[in-house]
């Protein structure tokens, strides 16, 4: 379909104008002058200021376009720098994870060692106490006999020699011996 050329368009407009005038579709009065003035004014504005207005509106769109581009570029740069930093951090994080694992192992072994040594120390002290007590237990009858021999018998012999009541004297000696032991 061929597009109409300008002379043909003008011809069709003039023909339509003539037909509308003859059939009283277009009524000529003062409003026609207003119509001519109105379209003339619109045409003048479009002719003289159309480019300026279009450019100013286009400039607004271009400014927004540039700002968006800049923000995207800035965002991309930020993402790239974050990616580079992440790449640098990865080996450090791996070393840190290995180091932390070894620290955990060491702390566990140290804990076990400490528990073992503490247990061993307590065991040895308890065994020493038991040994000491056993020895005391073993030596107690001999010591008692010795004390009786050293303290009680001479007094009994002395009292018997002096004809005192031996039972009362033995009781007194026993009490003295007990008080000494307690002391």
């Amino acid at each position, binding site marked *: 379909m061929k597009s109409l050329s300008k002379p043909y368009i003008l011809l069709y407009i003039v023909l339509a104008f003539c037909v509308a005038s003859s059939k009283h579709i277009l009524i000529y009065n003062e*409003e026609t002058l207003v119509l001519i*003035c109105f379209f003339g004014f619109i045409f003048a504005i479009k002719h003289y200021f159309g480019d300026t207005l279009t450019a100013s509106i286009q400039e607004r769109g271009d400014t927004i376009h540039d700002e968006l581009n800049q923000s995207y570029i800035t965002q991309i740069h930020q993402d790239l720098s974050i990616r580079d930093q992440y790449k640098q951090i990865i080996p450090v994080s791996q070393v840190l994870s290995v180091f932390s694992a070894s620290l955990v192992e060491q702390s566990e072994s140290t804990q076990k060692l400490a528990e073992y040594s503490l247990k061993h120390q307590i065991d040895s002290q308890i065994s020493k106490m038991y040994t000491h007590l056993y020895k005391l237990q073993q030596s107690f009858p001999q010591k008692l006999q010795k004390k009786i021999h050293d303290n009680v018998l001479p007094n009994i012999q002395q009292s018997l020699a002096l004809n005192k009541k031996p039972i009362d004297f033995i009781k007194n000696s026993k009490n003295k011996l007990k008080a000494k032991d307690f002391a």
Partner: protein
Amino acid sequence: MISTPLEQFTISSIIPLHIGKYYFSFTNSSLYLFLAIGTAGLLFHFVTQNGGFLVPSRWQSLVEMIYEFVRSLIQEQIGAKGRKYFPIVFTLFVFLLFTNLIGMIPYSFTATSHLAVTFGLSLSLFIAITIIGFQIHGLHFFSFLLPKGAPLILAPLLVVLELVSYCFRAISLGVRLFANMMAGHTLVKILSGFAWTMLSVGGALSVASVFPFAVVFALTGLEIGVACLQAYVFTILICIYLNDAINLH
């Protein structure tokens, strides 16, 4: 047949409708009001389809500029408290702008050249602003009638004056828009009548008809400017009255 310059403001019924003694006819005024609203609605609909473009097209830029203009107007006049009134102010501005501009097209009808339309709009907005004032401040809203720093001796006189001035706001707002539109269109019609008559007579007068024709040409541009300006003036006055109601002094 002699036509008068005021004939262009005649309201004619397109679809007559009577209910008792009341007329609910669809008139030429209704038609052009719907046309203005429909044009504005279609423009905003097609521009914001699918959320619009991130990098705006020319029409989207135009719509965004209108939006930013009204938003900055509210921000300057009322402040942060006025943000919730943005929809009504924006709708008002767009409605008046499109109605005035569509009225500039020859053989059309200017709906805002009738006091019924402009006064109805201004009175309803005035009542709404007064209600907002009482809602926010209660009876303390009456303190608006006594200006800050005024001596108490003058209070009785000042309160009456301020009350009259306050009530007259609704009238002045509607009449301003109506008078500007009516006067402008009447003047254009009168001068174009001069030019047409001179052209019809012929001879030297038909040559001289260029002068009134040039004046009509300049007036057309002026009237387009006045159409945009009156929409702006109406809107900014509404914002100022809202600010008085919200923030008092």
